Structures are given as C-alpha cells and as structure tokens.
C-alpha cells in the first residue's frame, strides 16, 4: 500500500484544495497519470502520480482543502490484496458533505501504522535533511511526499513556508501541521481542525495575488541570499535568423507560423547540449547536472505574477514541436491547467521580455537551478562588421549564472553557442541528434 499525499507544488505551498478526482477506487494507474486536479496559489494544477498500481481508496472528497503531505489516496501495488479500509485523513471539508471526512478522525493513532514504511527512522533525502537544518525545520511534524513517503526538499520548503506564514500577523491561521508518518517519539497527532476552511473558488483575486507574491518572494529572497550570481550579456545580429524564419513562415498557413521566441528556446536547448554545466541544480554543495533538458519558460499571468512551467526535453523537439509545446503551455498556464511535473521539473529558466519592449533582462536564478537566460526585444541598431557600418535587428541575450556552480567562462561559452546557433538558423530546425 502506498499513500499518495497532497503534493508540494512549490516552495510556498502550504495546502491545496482537491478540486476534482480523475480516478476512482479500482482504477489502474501508471507513472505519469493525472489523478486529480488541485487548486493552488498558482492556479489549478493537474497532479500526476509516480507509482504504479491500483487505486484502493480516495481519502478526501472533492472540495476539501488539505495540508501538503496529507495522505489523500491509497494506491495498491501489483498483486497486493485490497487492504482494510484506510483511516480517513484529517481534512477540512469546504462544504458540508456527507463523506468519510466527517467521520470521527483519528486523534492519537500514529499514521505510520497504516503507512507503507514502518521503521521508526525518519525517511528523508540528504538534501532535504540539510535544508531542514538550514531552515531550522522540525522533521517530526512533516509527512513526506517523496518515494515511500520520504521527506523531500519540497516538503521542507513547504514546512518552512508554513512556519513563516504562521509568524506573519496578517495571514489567516494556517492549517494544522500534517500528521507525522513516522514519529520518532510517540507524540500525539495534532487534532485535525474541524471548522470548514474557505473554498479556493471564493478566494478573491487579491488573495490569489498575495499568495503568488509570497511564492515569488520566498524563492527570490532565497536566490538573492544564497546564490552568488554572475551576469554576462551579448548582442546578437538576428538578421539571418529572422530572414530565414520569415521565409519559412511565408510557406505556412497562419495557424502553423512559428514565432521568434521559439528560435530562442531552440537555441538555448541546443546550446545546453554543448554546455551541460548550466543545466541542472545546486544541491548538497555541489553541481548536479541534469541529463534531461527541461526549459522553464517564464509566463506572465494576466492577474499578476508569473509561472515558469517546463518544456520537457526541449532538446528533443523540432521547431514545430517546440512551437506547439509553448503554445500549449501558455494556454494551460493562463487557463490554470498545468501539470505538477511541469511546475517542478525545470532544469533552467528562460525569460523573454521582448514583447514588453525591454532591451535586456538580468534575471534572478530560480533555486536550485544554476542559470537563467534572458532575452530582450529585437531592435534595429547600428552594427559594425568587416569595417562596414549597417543597421541590423539586434537581440540582447544575457545569462545569470550561479558562481558556486560555474564561472563566467562557462556562461560565456554558452552565450557563444547561442549566438552561433542563431546565426545559422537552419541548425535549429531539427532536434538534437
């Protein structure tokens, strides 16, 4: 039996509202399946499962808000018999619904007894343990959302965010700390609150924005505190790339046209295959590069704030597939229908402020990533080449790099590759071989 817990979809997330179940008991699920829609401060997120098995029970009804880490479903592994009905999770029904959430909740039962893991040791990744020490987070109060209920970085960050919001006088009282899966000492579980919580749908846009700002504040303050940024900038003559794109688009119907932003994403993806040191995370005091290239693309929300969902395996996509992927991400971001992996997987971030008329952007790295690439508006500028002065469409590309992970030389090599790729746009068309 595996408990599927309310996932943490960002450093700030304290709780989520289960808006809709997309599976029911008896359904088979496999890795990557979307099993539910959860309302968060970043919109409604489709949450994926990373286990294989059969849905044994859904522990909270739709419309219920639950703290991060609360078990919300039970998944039965291959060949496991259906177990006894699991204990209901402490949950706060938004509307009075006749469900198991209204049954008397267990008060003093250590949840570890019905969890998958039974050892008394707290399961936690080394990274998360270190982060917990740094942030002064007490591990006993945390339910892990990682593999086998292990406590992950995200869980620690969520716990720290909860602690922070508790300290803030203006915020409403947060939900009770989630029950520990494996308490070290036989501490009694916190009594689940029985009062109904506010429905996410009723949250005003001011609340939404406040939540979004808190999320950005937490990540960016941490970035500025922990990451020694270095910045590099280069100007790129875009005349070949734009001419080539124009000729390509002329052959296409309007619905199949490709935007210049797609060229930029392709150039970043291919340059990262040459300079992999910028693609990955700074964890445990060392650079951990990622084989997969998932480009987080900053998308502004109309109601304010921004989300940077990932274009998965961007180096493997053709130009048309990249355009389709971006279009799809932008639409789903604005409609509030992102998937959980898209919110948590990015290995680097690209921000493109060209539409705002800004010439260059020096970004703040999204931790634990180690680089952020910025593009400004393509403007006509005087350009000297081969002793001649001409006017060219010029793009300013920048990189913010984590100096713990790489040096300016690495960032310089990366920008050099981006420049070369944009000067030979035909190379951008097909996926990396």
């Amino acid at each position, binding site marked *: 039996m595996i408990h599927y817990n309310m996932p943490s979809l960002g450093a700030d997330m304290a709780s989520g509202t289960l808006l809709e179940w997309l599976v029911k008991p008896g359904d088979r699920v496999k890795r990557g399946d979307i099993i539910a829609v959860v309302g968060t401060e970043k919109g409604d997120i489709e949450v994926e499962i990373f286990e294989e098995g059969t849905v044994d029970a859904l522990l909270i009804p739709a419309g219920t808000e639950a703290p991060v880490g609360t078990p919300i479903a039970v998944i039965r592994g291959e060949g496991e018999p259906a177990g006894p009905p699991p204990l209901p999770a402490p949950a706060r029904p938004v509307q009075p619904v006749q469900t198991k959430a209204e049954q008397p909740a267990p008060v003093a039962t250590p949840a570890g007894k019905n969890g998958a893991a039974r050892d008394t040791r707290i399961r936690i990744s080394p990274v998360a343990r270190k982060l917990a020490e740094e942030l002064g987070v007490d591990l006993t109060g945390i339910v892990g959302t990682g593999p086998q209920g292990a406590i992950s970085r995200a869980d620690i960050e969520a716990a720290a965010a909860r602690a922070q919001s508790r300290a803030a006088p203006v915020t409403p009282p947060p939900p009770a700390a989630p029950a520990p899966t494996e308490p070290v000492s036989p501490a009694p579980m916190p009594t689940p609150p029985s009062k109904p919580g506010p429905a996410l749908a009723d949250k005003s846009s001011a609340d939404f924005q406040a939540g979004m700002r808190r999320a950005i504040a937490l990540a960016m303050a941490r970035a500025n505190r922990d990451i020694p940024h270095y910045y590099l900038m280069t100007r790129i003559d875009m005349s070949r790339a734009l001419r080539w794109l124009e000729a390509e688009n002329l052959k296409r119907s*309007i619905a199949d*046209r490709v*935007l210049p*932003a797609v060229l930029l994403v392709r150039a970043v993806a291919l340059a990262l295959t040459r300079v992999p040191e910028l693609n990955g995370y700074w964890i445990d005091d060392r650079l951990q590069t990622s084989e997969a290239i998932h480009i987080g693309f900053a998308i*502004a929300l*109309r109601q304010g704030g921004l989300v940077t969902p990932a274009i998965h395996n961007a180096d493997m996509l053709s130009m048309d597939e990249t355009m389709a992927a971006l279009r799809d991400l932008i639409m789903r971001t604005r409609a509030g229908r992102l998937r959980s992996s898209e919110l948590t997987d990015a290995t680097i971030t690209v921000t493109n402020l*060209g539409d705002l008329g800004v010439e260059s952007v020096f970004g703040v790295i999204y931790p634990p990533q180690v680089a952020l690439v910025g593009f400004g508006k393509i403007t006509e500028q005087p350009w000297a080449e081969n002793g001649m002065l001409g006017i060219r469409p010029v793009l300013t590309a920048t990189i913010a790099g984590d100096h713990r992970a790489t040096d300016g030389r690495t960032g310089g090599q990366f920008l050099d590759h981006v420049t070369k790729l944009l000067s030979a746009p035909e190379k951008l068309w097909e996926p990396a071989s």
Partner: protein
Amino acid sequence: MNATLQADLRDLFVEELARIAPEADYEHLDPTADLRATLEIDSFDFLNFLIALDARLGVSTPEADYGKLISLDDLVRYFSARLQ
C-alpha cells in the same frame, strides 16, 4: 467604405480581443491606441488573435503586414479593405 461592415468588424475584433484580455474595459478603449501595449497582448496572443480572424473572416494576414495593425482603427481599416 461600408459603415455597417466597419461597425460589424469592430464588434468582432472586440469580441476576439476580449477572449485574450477579458479584464480590459472595451467601452472606453481608445480606437487609436496601440492595442498590444494597452491590452498587454504578447506575440503569442497576437498570433492567436490573427488565427481567429483568419478562421472567422477568411482573411490571412501576412507577417509583413503586422506593422500596419497597431490600433483598433488600423484593424478596421485593414480588414475592411481586404474584405472588399
């Protein structure tokens, strides 16, 4: 030019723009203002807008003409000319 066509086009543009930027006040939209700046429409939104107009009016706008489409008045002028 046909005044009815122009009024119809204006309504259609506002309807499509409102899908992209629903929060804007279209009653008081300056018809000479830069639409992309006023409504904060990015290049993806703008392309989607033109795709929608292509579908509804059968007028496909070449990239070379994007520069002629700045304000609501520009759009009305451009599309009524293309439709006649």
